[in-house]
């Protein structure tokens, strides 16, 4: 603008920012309208991590979730012997640590930047603050977290059901083998 003095300072931004677009892509926030997403944008923290820099460490109290804006994050789990196992590689648009939005249970894995990574962080205290001020928006987010967790639980149940079926088949086969071994006279 040629004369910034005359700029309307009360005018709200019409274009959706990069953060709002990123939030829109996360299932937890899918029920929120643009105004509500802009409110969340005012609460989130933007952080940049260099390669191999830890974002959080296994065992620390959980505080909130992260959304990958650019770069890559590795999720790593360590066993009691200190042996590390790579659980997931998360790229742009992925999110992690969402369980911590509900309570401060210790982190089950370590998150580490695999390259120069930009993240957006949304934390439990801000969610609780939002629940206090704007209960409707807060409840939508809590419902979103519940949906994501139930989806994961459903997928987990499916996997464990399949595993159970395979275990049952294997048990039957072992039993049959047992019977055959008992019925056949030794040579």
């Amino acid at each position, binding site marked *: 603008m040629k004369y910034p003095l005359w700029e309307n300072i009360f005018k709200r931004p019409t274009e959706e920012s990069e953060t709002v677009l990123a939030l829109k892509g996360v299932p937890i926030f899918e029920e929120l309208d643009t105004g509500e997403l802009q409110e969340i944008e*005012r*609460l989130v*923290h933007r*952080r940049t*991590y260099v390669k191999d*820099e*830890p*974002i*959080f*460490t296994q*065992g*620390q*109290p959980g*505080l909130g979730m992260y959304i990958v804006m650019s770069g890559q994050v590795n999720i790593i789990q360590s066993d009691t012997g200190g042996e590390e196992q790579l659980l997931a590689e998360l790229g742009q648009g992925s999110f992690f640590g969402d369980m911590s939005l509900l309570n401060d249970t210790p982190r089950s894995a370590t998150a580490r930047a695999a390259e120069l990574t930009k993240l957006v*962080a949304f*934390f439990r*205290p*801000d969610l609780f*603050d939002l629940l*206090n*001020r*704007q*209960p409707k928006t807060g409840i939508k987010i809590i419902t979103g977290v519940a949906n994501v967790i139930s989806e994961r639980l459903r997928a987990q149940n499916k996997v464990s059901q399949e595993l159970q079926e395979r275990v049952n088949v294997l048990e039957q086969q072992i039993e049959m083998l047992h019977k055959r071994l008992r019925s056949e006279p030794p040579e």
Partner: protein
Amino acid sequence: MTDPQPQHRTISIDAGLLRALGKLILALLGLYLLVRLFPYLSNVLVLVLISVLLTAIFGPFVDVLERWSVPRSLGSLIILLMVLMIVGLAFRFLIPVVREQAVSIQQLVQSQQPAELMAKLEAWIESQVPVPGDIAISEQIDLPSRLNSFVGGFVSSTVTMLLNMVGVVTSLFIVLVITFLMMKDRRKLKRGIISLVPNRYFEPALNLFDKVETQLSNYIRGQLLDALIIGILSVIGLWILDIKYFVFIGMIAGIANLIPYIGPVVGAIPAMLVSLINNPGEPVMLLYIAIMFAIVQLIDNSVVSPTVMSKSVNMHPISVILIVIIGGNLMGAFGMLIAVPAAGIIKVTLEQIHWAMKHYKVI
């Protein structure tokens, strides 16, 4: 057989130890600078501290308004205007009564009555306690003049403080502006501070900030609510006992209650003095006053405190006495009053820092 290798004596210094030493030196330097700059910054710090306290007390009301879709800036303005209105009304109706009672107490103390009373008291002490030599106890300790100067000084300083309120308008204005901005931009300020924290300490710092903010807010509100309830109960109790100037004395008892252990005793002394001066023939009134304050304390300890106070700030009586002395040395009577709440704030903050350092394995 090979020749033995020549042995070089090397001194290896642990890098961690060096870092720790560096941090210690920095911390000591910071502390030194703080102590040196304190006289220059104390006025500003007090104004900021008052604004932080006001934000902690009234911030949640802005949150409530925000819940009713009132924008934060407008909500902050409404709450501040309401507070000013309540304070104005208190000045309009309560302060004249308090001032009148304070002046009456001063006049009473300066009259002849206490001198007679003290003479009787001295005669009684002399008959009970053996005094070496021929020197009368009155010559040794000069009770009436000491009492006169103490009570007179206390009352006149209170009256002067009340009358000079106009003189602090500038400070009040600055406090109001800072409080307004803090209430309006609380989250922006918090995010601004957190953005300065390195990635390694980001989550611990945020967790710490949140916990300290919540605990302090609860603690300050609890302390003030407790003082208010004790003040009201004391006023009612003194009114029932028909003690003169019950509003003024009850208010002192409420404010004194901010100091644990010492406060309740300090609160009871003015009531006993007034009763002693007005009804010297009825020492049993002292017992009634003591019982009344004991009942108020009982209600405070069993009902009020557990309901309104944060339980995290428990201090040993010795710590309280030492803290009150330090507060008195630093900032006089006002320092004595705010020393324990300030120490409570520091204690909560340090506890939370320790929690965060332990859980995030910083230590």
